[in-house]
């Protein structure tokens, strides 16, 4: 404690006024560090943006340029028309991904919220066991149950054709996604409902409201932010789902955006121009990223897993 002679003893006194700026030297050092981090954070994003407007068709990028000479949106046009060798347009792929994501999101939240309500507010026999069951499933990644889901869904025939099974359809992938999404929705919503004060419900109960009324008229409106966030996260997981659809789906009309994206970069990429791949990556990422960015404030408060509440 030899430093007890404080060099700036007047500082605490001046705190009623806006604090003076940082000394320029430390401001400069901090700005340099933060600019360096900004560069690292933005580098992959800027690279992919500059690739996507690179006009040089089949060629690979040979140097780093933010705006390549002759920049054009040709790659976007090509990707929109036909992203992969499969005869399927971007719009069809996007519609498949959208259906899958929407289904997973609405189904998980719609069914999950009533169970979350019970877990948060009631004490019934066997509740601990049921909550533990949900939590245990939550820990396991969805790929962990890919083998039984594949086998079981494969046994359900949809049409008359030999390969026309529930497994080889968007419904099958959706069910498999919900199998992982529903426990998450229950647990996340339960965490949020726990933070809603009980006084409101008790007051309503005294006024003669039934359980159904308190749930529908009080809990659901108050839980709207958490419902929206959980639904969005469910949507995101469906939109970017890769492993299950890559394993389950075999027919081109069912393919999703993430499968097409992997087709353009992975082991089957062959001669796909990198500008096409870059445009595709941006088209897949941008819509959900923008929504995520806008909802970010609510997501932090609506995401209760791992919180210390």
């Amino acid at each position, binding site marked *: 404690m030899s*430093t*007890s002679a404080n060099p700036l003893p007047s500082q605490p006194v001046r705190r009623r006024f806006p604090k003076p*700026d*940082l000394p320029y030297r430390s*401001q400069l050092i*901090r*700005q340099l560090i*933060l600019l360096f981090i*900004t560069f690292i*954070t933005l*580098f*992959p*994003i800027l690279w992919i943006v500059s690739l996507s407007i690179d006009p040089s068709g089949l060629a*690979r*990028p*040979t140097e*780093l340029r933010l705006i390549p000479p002759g920049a054009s949106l040709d790659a976007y046009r090509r990707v929109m028309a036909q992203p992969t060798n499969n005869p399927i347009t971007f719009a069809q792929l996007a519609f498949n991904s959208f259906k899958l994501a929407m289904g997973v999101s609405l189904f998980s939240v719609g*069914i*999950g919220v*009533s*169970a979350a309500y*019970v877990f948060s507010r*009631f004490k*019934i*026999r066997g509740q601990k066991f*049921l909550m533990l069951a949900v939590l245990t499933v939550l*820990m*396991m*990644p969805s*790929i*962990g*149950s*890919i*083998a*039984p889901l594949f*086998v*079981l869904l494969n046994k359900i*025939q949809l049409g008359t054709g030999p390969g026309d*099974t529930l497994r080889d359809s968007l419904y099958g992938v959706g069910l*498999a996604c919900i199998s992982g999404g*529903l*426990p998450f929705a229950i647990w996340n919503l339960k965490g949020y409902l726990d933070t809603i004060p009980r006084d409101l419900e008790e007051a309503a109960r005294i006024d003669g409201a039934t*359980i159904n009324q308190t749930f529908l008229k009080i809990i659901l409106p108050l839980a709207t932010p958490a419902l929206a966030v959980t639904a969005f996260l469910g949507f995101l997981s469906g*939109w*970017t789902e890769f492993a299950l659809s890559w394993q389950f789906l075999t027919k081109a009309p069912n393919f999703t955006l993430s499968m097409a*994206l*992997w087709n353009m*970069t*992975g082991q089957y990429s062959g001669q796909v121009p990198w500008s096409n*791949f*870059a445009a595709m*990556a941006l088209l897949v*990422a941008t819509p959900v*990223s923008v929504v995520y*960015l806008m909802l*970010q404030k609510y997501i*932090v408060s609506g995401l209760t*897993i*791992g919180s*210390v509440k």
Partner: protein
Amino acid sequence: MATMTEQPTPRSGFANWWIRTSTTRIAWLYLLPAFLVMGMITFYPLFYQVWMSTTDYNIKNLRIDAVAPNPANLSEACTTNMKGECTWGRFDNYRQIFTGELPVAIANFSFWNVLAFDLVWTFTNVPFHVIIGVLIAVLLNTKGLWFKRFYRAIFVLPIVIPSLVVAVVWRNMFDPDYGSINQLLTSVSHLFGGSTVAARWLDQVNYPIAGIPLTLSYFALLIANIWLGWPFMTIVATGALQSIPGDLYEAASIDGATGRQQFFKITMPLLRPAIIPAAVLGMITTFNLFNLIYLLSGGGPLRRTEILVTTAYRLVNENRLYGVAAAFSVIIFFVLLILTLATNYVTKATERYDI
């Protein structure tokens, strides 16, 4: 009216019970949809998986009218035993996974290597995320810093981009000939008069650092995952930092505490309760980080960056060994259970930390 209530009807026991349990009935009704669905698509497959893991479930058993699978490789397991007894019997899939003698020869398959790599992967990534994340949060929390909101908006970008896209973009960035990482390193190297960098990030087999058995693709994955992971910790730490009352720092500086002392005696202890659950969550996520590893390095080269979930996926996707894959998943489940219990124990122990 009074006589009505005293009426001793034989149904009153039932009626009482009916009224008494009305809340419970509604509770169960509310639980029913979720548990019906989970029963069908979550719990039933999990139990089915345990049964599958004791069979030689294979591609030939897939069709609806196909033959049922046999109990796992019973005959072979028996012939290997000198006394003619079945030592493993129905658990032969598990034996095969642990010894690496799978029914289909898979090059470089070793459960123990995969498990070891997965643990190394988890325990090297999360500290980076936590340390970098907290340091940047503290840096950003400086009073009077310019462009704070700009930096906060930029730094959140790695979280909001889907991991699938992040993985495939980084895969191309690590391309030895056209990737931007080598191009960037080359420009830096030229600046200092060096030569062109052409590191084979994803398929160089030998170890870049002598004595550490980790390939260059591990470091490529590490770089990509640090880029991906630290902003989450920054967000968590920023939230916690903002809830620390400023009076504490003022009091400390009046008492003559230096900046470093304030960081270790005030900031760190008060960040702890927020950072530890986030780190545990990050550990479980990193341990199961399928998208990044499968789509970036593909587990290569020679399966040296394979983790448990990517291996389980390959057993289904490439090798079509459904029975073995089921056994593998059951093993993953127990590994995760141990990991969760262990971290739970550790964090409970640290929660008692008093400030």
